[in-house]
């Protein structure tokens, strides 16, 4: 029999500490939607998504009511659209179909406008990538991602060179909304195929059809638990593990319930600490609770490494299948503690880059000056890719070269995307390095066979 203190603990986590299920993401394969023309393919895609996802939102709401835990986002991820439109070439028509299906089903975002070019780019993938700025400017729910490196293949510098331009063009085409298109665009190294979180979610080619992946959250819960710990860092790690276990168990319950109610397969639980701009839901504040005066000071990387590892260890036993990104996210615009640290000068871009070596993703939701050269953006992506490839982990870049803005300005998106201070960036040029192109060879330790 559950005790009163356990019941009240759960209720406190949900009502006071913002414990929620961040997203239920339905993964759909679109390979059976490929037709000869772009229009026929797009029509089939629309039909499939609206059929399988028609009850996704209502199911999420029903689960929230039954278990009394908020289910914040309901999303769909689809097979990489660069492959789905490879033959017909109707990429923009496909994007329109994704947007219409997202609106029809009432979901928050749809991910999978994706290309996987970590080793090389085909002609159709190049055309696909060139369509991304337009697609992100004419849709509001479609999310795009491009995998430009992997530990096994190395780093595709030709693709990275192109992506610098794509970020700039996307920023320009969505300049009337603080370049918001870039908030829906991710460049990945070692992208995972079952990530439920946006903007980087896509449904991998090795996945089954009609799969539920769930992302849990709970930075506020971890922070509150740590407030009661007056011990050393081993005790801190133990406390994070215990808390992550409980949070992930809630996610596993929701994932199983959602897959049963929707007649879908249960995929994975992604046990990530994903902050929101709400007060008290900050990863930065967890690090400060550990004893840092301000996130970004010396010691931040060590504290984040402890956190990221303990979250994984605590969560991994709580779910039958752990996947996705699973760890601590450090998106600047979505975390009130990170925003404050940047504004106060405590947190710099170079410290954030170091932090990405030990967190679960990368340079995320970072606004940089609008006049940043495209080669600089490519070089940021290359740096992150190097960290991911060498450390055998996922890294991502979601930077916003905010059109017309300079360091110290703000971009404002509201909602979960929050607001970001435009950060200083090195003025020295990597253009010659980026222009060389080619492929940085895979590291020695990738040859494991």
């Amino acid at each position: 029999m559950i005790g009163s203190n356990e019941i009240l603990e759960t209720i406190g986590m949900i009502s006071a500490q913002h414990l929620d299920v961040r997203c239920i993401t339905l993964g759909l394969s679109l390979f059976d939607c490929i037709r000869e023309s772009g229009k026929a393919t797009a029509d089939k895609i629309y039909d499939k998504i609206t059929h399988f996802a028609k009850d996704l939102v209502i199911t999420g709401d029903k689960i929230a009511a039954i278990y009394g835990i908020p289910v914040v986002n309901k999303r769909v991820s689809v097979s990489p659209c660069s492959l789905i439109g490879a033959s017909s070439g109707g990429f923009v028509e496909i994007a329109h179909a994704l947007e219409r299906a997202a609106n029809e089903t009432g979901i928050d975002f749809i991910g999978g406008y994706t290309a996987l070019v970590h080793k090389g780019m085909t002609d159709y993938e190049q055309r696909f990538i060139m369509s991304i700025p337009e697609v992100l400017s004419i849709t509001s729910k479609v999310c795009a991602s491009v995998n430009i490196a992997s530990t096994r293949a190395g780093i595709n510098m030709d693709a990275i060179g192109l992506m610098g331009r794509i970020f700039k063009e996307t920023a320009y085409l969505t300049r009337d909304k603080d370049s918001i298109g870039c908030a829906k665009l991710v460049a990945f190294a070692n992208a995972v195929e079952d990530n439920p979180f946006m903007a980087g979610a896509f449904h991998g080619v090795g996945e089954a059809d009609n799969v539920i992946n769930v992302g849990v959250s709970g930075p506020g819960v971890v922070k509150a638990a740590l407030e009661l710990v007056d011990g050393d860092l081993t005790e801190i790690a133990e406390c994070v593990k215990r808390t992550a276990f409980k949070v992930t168990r809630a996610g596993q319950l929701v994932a199983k319930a959602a897959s049963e109610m929707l007649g879908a397969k249960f995929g994975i639980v992604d046990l990530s600490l994903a902050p929101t701009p709400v007060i008290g839901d900050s990863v930065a504040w967890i690090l400060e609770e550990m004893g840092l005066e301000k996130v970004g000071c010396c010691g931040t990387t060590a504290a984040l490494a402890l956190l990221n590892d303990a979250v994984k260890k605590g969560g991994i036993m709580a779910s039958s299948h752990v996947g996705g990104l699973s760890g601590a996210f450090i998106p600047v615009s979505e975390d009130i503690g990170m925003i404050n640290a940047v504004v106060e000068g405590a947190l710099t871009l170079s410290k954030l880059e170091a932090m990405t070596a030990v967190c679960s993703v990368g340079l995320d939701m970072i606004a940089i000056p609008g006049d940043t050269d495209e080669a600089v953006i490519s070089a940021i992506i290359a740096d992150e890719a190097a960290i991911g490839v060498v450390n055998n982990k996922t890294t991502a870049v979601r930077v916003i070269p905010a059109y017309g803005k300079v360091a110290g300005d703000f971009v404002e998106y509201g909602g979960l995307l929050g607001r970001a201070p435009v950060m200083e960036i090195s003025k020295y040029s990597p253009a010659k390095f980026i222009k060389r192109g080619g492929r940085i060879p895979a590291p020695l330790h990738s040859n494991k066979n």
Partner: protein
Amino acid sequence: MKAFITVIGKDRVGIIAGVSTLLAEQKVNIEDISQTILQDNFTMIMRVDTAECALALDELAKKLTEKGESLGVVITIRHEDIFNAMHRI
């Protein structure tokens, strides 16, 4: 279905009566009740069985929320699985 109802708020006459009357009307059986005062707040936890209740849990939750508003307390109901999941291996 087994569920836990929590009632949290300022103590006053008629809270238990109000909640239990609603539950009786909806054929929800109360299996266990505990109550305490936590940080000046009246806190009641009920374990209930909704097997005979004609309403779905989300509809019952709505009625309990409305009852809570009229009594000046916060009433929630949750399927017991959420607590078992988080606190039992």
